[in-house]
């Protein structure tokens, strides 16, 4: 059982939870994730470890309320408990001194990009970050990303703040301007990561993405999270979650992420109906 220590709403439907998990806080590194199970009937699902505090023994998670589990998680209050938190899972990001690093976060993926940007900065790299969202109101961790970066660029799909368009457009401009990135890290929606991969491919810039396929156990047992990387099938949970973006089969990943779409929708609807009857 893991108690919730603090809770914040960062943007509509995007929430931050700080939870007690001293053993995980002790071990966590940038790029790793946990598997949660909220209650007795809950499913197992992964979330990136955004931050950790060894002294307090807590870890921080940020998520978008998009399905049954994240809705349930978002409804929990301070002092409530989460049944299971397993981790840290996955391989940590390969943090070393490259020179110039570009870290890109799209939507709630910015939460996963933050610890990576910070770690690269701490390792002595020049960090240029690009953060994108649909609209200004959905931008998260702007201040944190600013601190973790030497330069921060912002894009919004609707142009309500800074550049109008996608993070990949900003990236292309920067590359054209002569920002000599040694490596690009991109975390966000799968289509965004694909766009980033296609942007850097012609320039031959090493590009790493952190994939978020469906997972169940999170430790290599089920193979639900299998992805095609080059000519190999890899498990995102134990072989990843980070892979060479230029080798990832994003089309297949997008299809595999949709496998339970109708069940997920039905379950979410059911949860919302339950909530309604509860209030009556």
């Amino acid at each position, binding site marked *: 059982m893991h108690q919730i220590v603090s809770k914040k709403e960062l943007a509509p439907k995007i929430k931050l939870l700080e939870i007690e998990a001293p*053993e*995980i806080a002790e*071990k966590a590194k940038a790029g790793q994730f946990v598997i949660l*199970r909220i209650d007795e*009937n*809950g*499913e*197992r699902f992964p979330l990136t470890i955004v931050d950790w505090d060894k002294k307090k023994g807590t870890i921080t998670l940020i998520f978008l309320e998009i399905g*049954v*589990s994240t809705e349930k998680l978002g409804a929990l209050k301070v002092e409530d408990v989460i*049944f*299971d*938190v*397993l*981790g*840290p*899972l996955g391989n940590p990001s390969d943090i070393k001194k490259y020179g110039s690093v570009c870290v890109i976060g799209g939507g709630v993926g910015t939460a996963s990009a933050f610890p990576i940007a910070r770690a690269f900065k701490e390792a002595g790299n020049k960090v240029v970050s690009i953060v994108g969202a649909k609209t200004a109101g959905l931008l998260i961790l702007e201040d944190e990303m600013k601190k973790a970066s030497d330069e921060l660029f912002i894009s919004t799909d609707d142009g309500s703040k800074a550049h109008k368009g996608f993070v990949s457009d900003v990236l292309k401009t920067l590359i054209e301007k002569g920002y000599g990135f040694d490596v690009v890290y991109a975390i966000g929606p799968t289509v965004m990561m694909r766009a980033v991969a296609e942007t850097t491919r012609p320039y031959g810039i090493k590009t790493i993405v952190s994939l978020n396929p469906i997972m*169940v*156990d999170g*430790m*290599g*047992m*089920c*193979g*639900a999270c*299998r*992805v*095609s990387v080059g000519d190999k*099938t890899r498990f995102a949970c*134990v072989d990843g979650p980070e892979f060479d973006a230029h080798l990832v089969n994003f089309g*297949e990943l997008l*299809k*595999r992420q*949709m*496998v*339970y779409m109708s*069940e*997920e929708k*039905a*379950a979410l609807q*059911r949860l919302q109906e339950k909530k309604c009857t509860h209030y009556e």
Partner: protein
Amino acid sequence: MSEPKAKPKLQKQAVQIPKQAPEVRIRNFNEVTLGYTEEQALAEAGRCLQCPKPQCIQGCPVEIDIPVFIKLMKEKDYGAAIRKIKEKNCLPAICGRVCPQEEQCQKLCLLGKAGDAVSIGRLERFLADWERQTGIACSEEAPSNGKRVAIIGAGPAGLTAAADLVKLGHEVVIFEALHRPGGVLMYGIPEFRLPKSIVQAEADYVKKLGVEIRASCLVGRTFTIPELLKQGFDAVFIGTGAGLPQFLGIPGENFGGIYSANEFLIRVNLMKAYTFPECDTPIRIGKKVAVIGGGNVTMDSARSALRLGAEEVCIVYRRSREEMPARQEEIENAEEEGITCKFLANPTKFIGDEKGWVKAMECICMELGPPDESGRRRPIPVKGSEFVMDVDTIIVAIGRTPNPIIQSTTEGLAVTKWGTIVADENGKTNIEGVYAGGDIVTGEATVISAMGAGKKAAKAIHEYLMRKNS
């Protein structure tokens, strides 16, 4: 000359065990085999000849004193009978259900030479169920000897080693990566063959003996073995099992609708997807399901698919029926339920629709050549014999390989080229104080052989710790 003793009348046939009818059971996840009534159990126990030199014990990997427990049973002293079993086996309700007795104790039963062997497993099950219903007795906790042992994995090997060690006075903590104890008993074997409440009850019994079980703790990630030793554990037992799914490695295997048996069974058993949306974990089953493989996991997957509402379930196996590694009883159960088998066929590729969902499977016919190193005849593809099966769900059940996380995070631990941990017959690895047993050492095998390995390792760990003490 004394008169010859009157021979007891031999009952050649075993007492049949009641089962749910096939047409009923394919609509539910309740247990198929219902268990003996007291009367039936006594009748079956009565068949035991009480041989002066019993062979059955030698067939039992944990050496249960079978004739004695059956004798106590005949005397209706069920409490004493189950205590006799539990001297050696802390998981009797599980073993009574899933042990391949026909290959072990019952294979050596004298009665088997001229009829059916005594149904030892069914008697064990009867006693364990009797005890669970009347209240599980628990011996006093042994006084602590101050030694601490960490067990990695709460599967059959880990639970057995833990129970034996705690009874000897060691402080025992089991670290389990999943959120429930039981290992394959919990995530792999379906409810209709081994109800999860029974697995939980037997794990609870091990806890009652004084063992601490820490769930959702992945050794290798949350802690490593060197860290556990540094934290004050005097010895470690690794029972992490074979839980890594194998795939066929053929084109199209990542289409939607293609599951590893592990994913399918974890969703259905551990996560109870058959109750979705009561439980949050979904499972999607199509109309035409093909299950690839020939072992018990294949049967479990096929029978689960049927219960989830599949219209047709076909097992595709590359050898013939005679080579199937599944228990005969499970093959019969599957066939009774209407599952069909396509023998001597092997998938060559999967064909998907525009949404990335599997819609068909191309197979090639096989013929059997000379025996391979496993002693079974090797399947050889018949050139030009490809054919296509329309399917919308595939479950790949062709075996599991050892979990690799411990091996890759324990520096210096000797590992074979198959990824199993090197250990001697007592479970001793090349690192002092570190033991291993079960599937992680042998590769995928049976529940009871893992329990046997857990037992041997517990004995060796005890001797090691006592030696270290002096």
